C-alpha cells in the first residue's frame, strides 16, 4: 500500500525518500506499472518518481567515457548524436526495442535496474564494458555492469541506492560491435534470444573479443568461452563454427512459453554464426 508519494526534483530528495526504506523508484514506469498491476511487483510504501530529477538526464562525453544519465529514454539513445557516433551498437539495440511509445517513456536506467535477462540494452552495454554509478545517502560507488546482475529481476543495487549514471568507455579505433535480437517483428518482441559480439578488427579476425547473450541465462551474460574461441582467430568457417559451438554450450537457457531450451541453444548457435559471417564480410 502506497502511503507516500515523492516527486523528487533533485538526487538528494530522491535519496532522502529512499533512505526511509520500503520505497519503489519509478522512472518511465513501463516495467513498474504493468508488473505492479499484475501483482508481480509489490509497490513499496513510498513511491519515488525520479522523472523530474534534472541531474539524472542528459548525455555527455567526459574525458574518455560517455556518461549516460539513467533517465535517458530509449528513443534518445536511438537518436542522440553522441550515441550514434561512438556507441552505434547501443543505438541499434534501442531501435530494436519495444514500440515508439515505450521508447518515448522507457529509460536506460529502468532497463538496467529491472535486471531482466531479456533487457535489450544490457547486451550492448556488456559489450561496451559499461559501468554503473550508484548513490545512496551514505555515498557513491561504481561497479562493472557485468557484476551488477544477481538473477532474473535481481541486482546488487541496495534498497537505498539510486542508479545515477551509466558510464561507457570510448571504444578504441577499429572497434566493431553487433547486436542481434531474434524475433519476427522489428522491435516489439520480448527477446527470446539475443546475441552481441564485439572486438577490434585486425588480421581478418577479432581481438579483445567481447561476447554477450540475452535471455539465455538468469541474467544477461558475457560469453567467456565464445570469446576465447574467437580471440585473435581468423574468421574462417572453422573458427566461426567453433565459436558458435562454444556459444551454444556456455549458455544456460530455460524452456518457457516463448521457446524451449533446445531451440534457444540452436538460435544462439545460428545467430552467432550469422553475426560472425557478417563481421567477416566486413
Amino acid at each position: 500500500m502506497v502511503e507516500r508519494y515523492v516527486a523528487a526534483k533533485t538526487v538528494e530528495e530522491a535519496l532522502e525518500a529512499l533512505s526511509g526504506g520500503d520505497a519503489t523508484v519509478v522512472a518511465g514506469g513501463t516495467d513498474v506499472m504493468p508488473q505492479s498491476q499484475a501483482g508481480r511487483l509489490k509497490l513499496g510504501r513510498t513511491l519515488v518518481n525520479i522523472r523530474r530529477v534534472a541531474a539524472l538526464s542528459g548525455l555527455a562525453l567526459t574525458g574518455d567515457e560517455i556518461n549516460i544519465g539513467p533517465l535517458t529514454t530509449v528513443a534518445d539513445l536511438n537518436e542522440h548524436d553522441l550515441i550514434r557516433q561512438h556507441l552505434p551498437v547501443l543505438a541499434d539495440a534501442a531501435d530494436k526495442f519495444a514500440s515508439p511509445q515505450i521508447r518515448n517513456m522507457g529509460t536506460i536506467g529502468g532497463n538496467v535496474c529491472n535486471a531482466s535477462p531479456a533487457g535489450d540494452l544490457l547486451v550492448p552495454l556488456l559489450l561496451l564494458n559499461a559501468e554503473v554509478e550508484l548513490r545512496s545517502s551514505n555515498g557513491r560507488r561504481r561497479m562493472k555492469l557485468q557484476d551488477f546482475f544477481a538473477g532474473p529481476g535481481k541486482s546488487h543495487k541496495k534498497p537505498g541506492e539510486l542508479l545515477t549514471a551509466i558510464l561507457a568507455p570510448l571504444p578504441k579505433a577499429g572497434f566493431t560491435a553487433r547486436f542481434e535480437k531474434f524475433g519476427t517483428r522489428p522491435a516489439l518482441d520480448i527477446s527470446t534470444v539475443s546475441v552481441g559480439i564485439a572486438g577490434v578488427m585486425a588480421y581478418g579476425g577479432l581481438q579483445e573479443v567481447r561476447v554477450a547473450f540475452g535471455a539465455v541465462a538468469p541474467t544477461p551474460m558475457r560469453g567467456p568461452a565464445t570469446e576465447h574461441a574467437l580471440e585473435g582467430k581468423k574468421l574462417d568457417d572453422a573458427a566461426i563454427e567453433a565459436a558458435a559451438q562454444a556459444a551454444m554450450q556456455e549458455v544456460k537457457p530455460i524452456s518457457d512459453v516463448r521457446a524451449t531450451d533446445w531451440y534457444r541453444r540452436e538460435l544462439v548457435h545460428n545467430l552467432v554464426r550469422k553475426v560472425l559471417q557478417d563481421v567477416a564480410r566486413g
Partner: protein
Amino acid sequence: MAVIAKDSLIGRRIPKMDAPEKTAGKTRYVQDMKLPGQLVGMILRTDRVHARIKRIDTSRAQALPGVHAVLTAADIPQKPIGVNKDNPPLKGDKVRCIRDEIAAVAAESEEIAKAALKLIEVEYEDLPGLFDPTQAMQPGAPVIQEAKPNNIAMVFDYAHGDVGAGEAESDVVVEDEFYLHYVTHCCMGVSGVIADFEPTSGNLTIYSNTQVPFLHKREFSEVLGMDPGRIRIIQPPIGGGFGSKLDIYPFEPIAVYLAKATRRPVKLVFSREEEFIASPTRQPAIVKLRSGCKKDGTLTFRTVDILLDNGGYTSWGATIPFVMMQTFSSLYRVPHCLYHTKAVYTNNPYAGSFRGYGNLQATFAVEQQIDKMAEAIGMDNLAFRLKNAQAPGEVTGQGMVFKSCGFKECLTTAAERSGYVQKFSANAANRSKPSARKRGIGMASMLHVGGGAKIYPSDGCGTILKLDDFAHVTLITGASEIGQGSETVLSQLVCEELGLPMSAVTVVNNDTEITPWDVGVHASRTTFIAGNSAIGAARKAKEKILALASKVANLTPEQLDMRGGCIVRAEDGEVVMPLPKLLRSLHFSDKAELVMTTNYYEPPSVHQGKDFKGDVSATYAWATQVCEVEVDTDTGIVKLLKVTAAHDVGRVLNRLGLEGQIEGGIVMGQGYALSEDMVFKQGKLLNPAFRDYKLMTAPEVPEMDISFIESMDGEGPQGAKGVGEAPAICMAAAIANAIYNATGVRMTNLPFTPENVYRALKGAS
C-alpha cells in the same frame, strides 16, 4: 430545364459513414458507457480445470463495504445456456474448464469488486482432468458432462457416392493427419455488457455487443424466464466481432442477475487477460484425410475423419463440421465422399464461431493434399486444380447449386498475376542451394457460403424505410454493424435505387425495439440478405414515388426515373421535379401520405435434412490466394512477402469497404498461420496477453495484390455476394504449400511459429 445524367454508386470507393466520429474519439462503445447509478460487475473464475465444488463461502465478500451483491449458483435458477444447453451461467456442482464462472459480485468500484472476489472462499475436490480428445473417447475416461457419459458432444456424418469404388479406381492415394490449433478473436474492444432492470415495470434493457440481437432476446427470455416483450437489446458500436459474439455466454445472464439483485444497472467488462481466458476460441481440430486421384488428375474420392476438442461445454465451435463438409464435398468435384466428425468433451476451453467457421481448418487439409496429389502424378498443381474445379451450373454431390461461380477465373487470375507456375518450379529447383533463406510460393482456394446459410427457421432480414419531407432517408434494418461496413453498403444500395447521394441516408440498426427481425451477423450474409431486403424496401418506395410523379408529369412511371435527388425523364434525364417537392406535395395534400415502406427478404435457399444435402445458401463465394514466403532456415522464421488474391465477389459494391475486408482477413489468416497460438498446459492458458500471443503488426503486413472477379450473381444485391469470411480462409493452406515449395518440408500442424518450423526443418521432434 436541367438534365441529370445517369450515374451509379456501384463499384465506387465509399468511405465508411461512421468513420469521421471514430477518428475524433466520439464514438461511445459499451466500454465507454456509464448509466446513472451503475455498478461494476465482476466474475470469480475457477483456478481448477476439473473439480467438484464442495463449498463456496461468500460471507466475507458480502460484508465488504461497497459490495451490493454476491451471487453463486445457489442464488440463480439453474438454466444452462449454449448450443447443447450444457453451460449453467454460474457453476454450482463442478467446474469443467478454466473459464468457469463460480461467483459474481456487483460493487461500487472496480477496486472493491476485485477485493470482494479475493474474499470468496471456494473448496474443491479435484477430479481427474482430460486434455486430449483422443483419450476422452477411451472407455473408462472421466466423464465431463453427466448427460453425455461417453463424452461425445456432437456427431456429424455425411456421405455421397461410394468411396470404396472411388478408391478402387484411384492411381494415387494420399493420407495425412492435420492438426489445427487454438486461436482467439482478440477483438480490440474486450467483451462487455450493461444490464439495467426495473423491477416495477419488469423492463430489462441490455446493452450488448451481440451479433445476433434477436436470437439473443429469445435466449435471454428462456434463460431468465422472462416475457421476451420486456427485453430490449441495444447494441452500442462494437470493437470487433469476427464471430465471437454469436452465442450467449455466461457473463451476459450473470450481469442481468446482478442487476436484478441490486436494482441498479450493472456493467461487466472483461480485462484483456479475462478476454483471453474466457471468450471463445477458434475450434481446434484433428483432421484425418484420405484422397485419391487418377493419373490424368481426376479426383476420385475423399474420406474424412475429424475429431474436435469440444472443451467443457458446447458453443458454436462444435457445429463447424456443418461448414467443413462443404469444402470436402464440393470445393472440387469429388464423386465419392465419406465424412465423419465427432466433438468430444474435455477439460479444455470451448470454441465458438470465428470468421471462416471451420473452413480454415478444412481448406488447410484439402489444399495441401491437392498439391501432394499433383506432385505424385507429376502434374502442375494449377492444372490439377483447374481440372477439378467447380464451374457454373454444377450441382455438387451435397446438392449445392452453383448458379454463378468464378472459381476458375480466381485460379487463373491469381496464378497469372503472381507468376505462380514459373516461380513454383524455380523455387523448387533452388531448394538444394546452400543459402539459409529459401523462397516459396503456395496456392489455396476456397468455397464459402455467400448468400446466407439456412440453419435457423428463417435466414431473413427486415427493413423499414422512410423518407422525410426533405427526401432524407431513414433506413431501419435488422442487420447489425460490427465494424465491417454494412451500414455504408446498405445505404449505398438504397441510394442507388432512389437516385440519392450517400449523405441522404441515416441508418438505424441497434435497438430491438425499433429494428425489424434479422437472424444476425454471421455466414457472410449481411450484404447479401440485408442488402436485398433494403433494395426491396427502396424499390417499393420508388414505385410509390414514381406512381405519384407520373400523375404530376403526365408520363407513365416507366418513363420516369429518380436521379440526383430529383424525378427525371428516364430517356434524357430532364428534371421533372425535385424529390422533396414531390414528397411534400404528397404529405401536405388532401391524401396526406408519407413514403414509408417495409420489406422482409428471405433467401431462396433450403434447409438441409439429416443427410446434410441441399442448397443451403442462395449463392457461394470463391477465392484463390497465392502466398509468397521466405523461410529462414537458421531460425525457422517464415516471412510472408506477398499475397495475390482473387475473389469472386459477385459484384463490387463498395470497392474501399471490400478491399478493407479482404486485407483485414488476409492479415488475420496470416496471424492464424504464423504467429497466433494459445498455449495450454493441462487446460490452463499460459499466454493470456498480447506479449506472448502475437497478433500481426504493421511492419509484418505483406504486399497485397487483390483482384475481384465479378460473376454477377443473379440473386445477389446488384449481383454481389457475401465475402466477409472468405479472405481469412485460404491463408494457412497457401502458406503451408509455400513452405513446402521453399523447403520440401510439409507442415501438417499449425501454427508455423519459428520454433515449430525450425523443428520440422531439422526433423527433430
